[in-house]
């Protein structure tokens, strides 16, 4: 790996972003990198936005990533995907979960919520390395929509592999870390979710 790899995760409280970034930082460690993670989860419980940075590298100082320096984007929700888009460098990798969680300002406050076309158009302005995944639907088909975060991690792992950005890493590194972080009875579900995420970007899903 040259220098550092900077991840940004963005979503809404309750979507499993915290577990996902915990997995990411530990995958970095398992691959032999220095790894750091920073998150703000003060109000997440109350449906607020949650963002979290993860960094891997030979030497990592700051846990935060400055605007414009995000290399890999994992967006869990449509409006949040747009909200944090300005943080990306041009050509960043992005996995975008096509879930819409409308805040009260939309559901009863009447503010407009961005549609999918706008999302794709704006992301295309920044990068041609984005994939779109319906993590919830894929996870629900496996029996538990809450595993959507691991579906996304699966997709992310495939994308990183393809990019050659972290050649030290194998899918097993990811699975081992995930297995160590979920209750024993959910290990198999999460393993399937991870695989389904990889399939979702490997099969059929074109890089847009």
């Amino acid at each position, binding site marked *: 790996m040259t220098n550092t790899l900077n991840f940004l995760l963005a979503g809404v409280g309750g979507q499993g972003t915290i577990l996902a970034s915990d997995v990411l930082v530990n995958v970095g460690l398992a691959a032999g990198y220095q790894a*750091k993670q920073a998150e*703000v989860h*003060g109000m997440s419980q*109350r449906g607020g936005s949650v963002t979290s940075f993860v960094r891997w590298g030979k030497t990592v100082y*700051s846990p*935060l990533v400055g605007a*414009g320096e995000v290399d890999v984007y994992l967006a869990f929700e449509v409006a949040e995907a747009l909200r944090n888009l300005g943080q990306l460098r041009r050509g960043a990798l992005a996995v975008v979960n096509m879930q819409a969680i409308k*805040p009260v300002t939309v*559901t009863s406050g009447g503010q407009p919520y961005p549609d999918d076309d706008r999302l794709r158009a704006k992301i295309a302005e920044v990068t041609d390395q984005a994939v779109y995944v319906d993590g919830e639907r894929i996870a629900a088909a496996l029996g538990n929509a809450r595993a959507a975060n691991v579906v996304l991690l699966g997709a992310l792992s495939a994308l990183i592999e393809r990019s050659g950005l972290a050649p030290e890493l194998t899918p097993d590194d990811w699975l081992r870390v995930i297995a160590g972080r979920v209750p024993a009875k959910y290990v198999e579900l999460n393993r399937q979710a991870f695989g389904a995420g990889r399939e979702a970007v490997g099969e059929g899903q074109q890089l847009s």
Partner: protein
Amino acid sequence: MIESPNPVVRMLSGDEAVARGAWEAGVAVASAYPGTPSTEILEEFARFPNVYAEWATNEKVAVDVAIGAAYAGKRALATMKHVGLNVAADAFMYASMTGIEAGLVIVTADDPAMHSSQNEQDNRTFAKFARVPCLEPSDSQEAKDLTVAAFELSEQFDTPVLLRLTTRVCHSTSAVRLETGSWKLEESADDESPIPNPQSPIPKFPRNPAKYVMVPGNAIKRHPVIEARIRAVAEYAETCPFNRVEPGDRALGIITCGIAYQYAREVFPTASVLKLGMTWPLPERLIRDFAASVDRLIVIEELDPFIEEAVRLMGIPCEGKRIFPLVGEFDPRVVRESAINAGLLPGDLHVALTGVDVGQLPARPPVLCPGCPHRGAFYVLNKLKVLVNGDIGCYTLGLIAPLSAIHTCGCMGAGIAVAHGAAKAGSPEHHVAVIGDSTFFHTGIPALANVVYNQSPVITIIMDNRVTGMTGQQENPGSGHTLQGRPAPRIELEPLVRALGVKHVKTVPAYHVEEIEKTLREYLKLDEPAVLITEEECALLPSARKRWVPLEVLDNCNGCTLCFRIGCPAILKSDELDEKTGRPKALIDASLCTGCEVCAQVCPRDAIRFR
């Protein structure tokens, strides 16, 4: 792969690392009041074997408890968010005067950028104010190491030590080597959590009034002692391993500390750096020598120019806040941009922004959760258009539209007394103070006693959800169990309030909107103190979750929108319009609805029912 048992390396947050450090240092008693970003320290520490950990009722109590343990000869820890130290300041100051028998460390978790706080005060000033050493880690490994060091320092110099964290240290994760520290370990199957030996017997509590009874005659003799002590610590600071020079290019020298060190290293990889792990007292000779070794000296520190001013007072020219912001937190970009603007780095920004314009996005403010028992009372307060002096907790979210029913909120425990003051000033309206159960135990009780003693017609609503909700459902004296899961007596609010002498006291189930309205209307006619306790456990507690049953909207909904006025995230505008009015009908998101029925009670057409 770093998987070998020796040394064990774990990714820990700064908070978890402090907890681990406290355990490795042999802390026996830890007391805290929750507060972001410090809360996880005690939650984590409480899980270690052979330790005592508790939620105190407030930060002053927590520090007094820790002082008591440290006087009794056991290492003790008190943790809090930055504003908690304001509450605990009195105790902190006398602890400095008396010193201790065993190590005493106070952790303050400051919150630059106010991610979850009412201000961004820089608590290093408290260390200077109290003549107490201040340690500041820059990552999780240092958080653990400096915690251990803080206890040694405390005992070596007979002083409390302030360990200052900031949000980005508390809530960032980085690798930490685990050690077994000062515990004498027994062989254990699991290398990671060795079980410490039973603790040594408690030494006799000191009978040393000259040191521990701070009457003026004794205190006057202690003051020179603590001044000499801080000078001795300053001498130690000259060679202490946490203050280190990282030599580099002589053109630029940077003095830095805490998380700012990481940004400094990232932005100025070749500069000379003086990294201070102890930011009070400062090592004057070390700083002088460092300054002499570089052409230009700058200080990179978040918030106050704390080091900068001290360096200037030494007569050493340096720049700091002229270049870097005084307000908010740093990140690598903030530091880089500031440096470019000051000519410290060449012209262009290292990375260009894409400049993408994403257009208008809907705000996503934090809101009261679906099923929150605070919602009904706020709906009524808004309906009655009364003046509300609020307080700090989940219920502060009653501020947000459409509930819009909080008019002041400053610090914990303020609301009741602010209402009283306004009433005494002749405010022409009835003032209602709203306070949560944990906040009432924290600092609300003295304020209510004052209302009774000095008689004002303040109406106090205690929103009793049986937990300290805002910070993540911690236990409190009304919960019935402790931090470490032991059963505890539940302190009931109504008898307590009656015992204070309030004549008008009523406890109402928090979901009974009509009953709340009726009671408040009665109270508004009174000219005496009155208290309404709205009671219902927090909807996020596991026991409450079991009772969740979603509601649905029936066909007779005519889109009147009244149910939107309770601001529940589970109530949506549907695509279906009412034929007569043309307004969208309501729709309930079954995945969010808990079935609290507050909406059903405000619906004039009985159009909301259980599924």
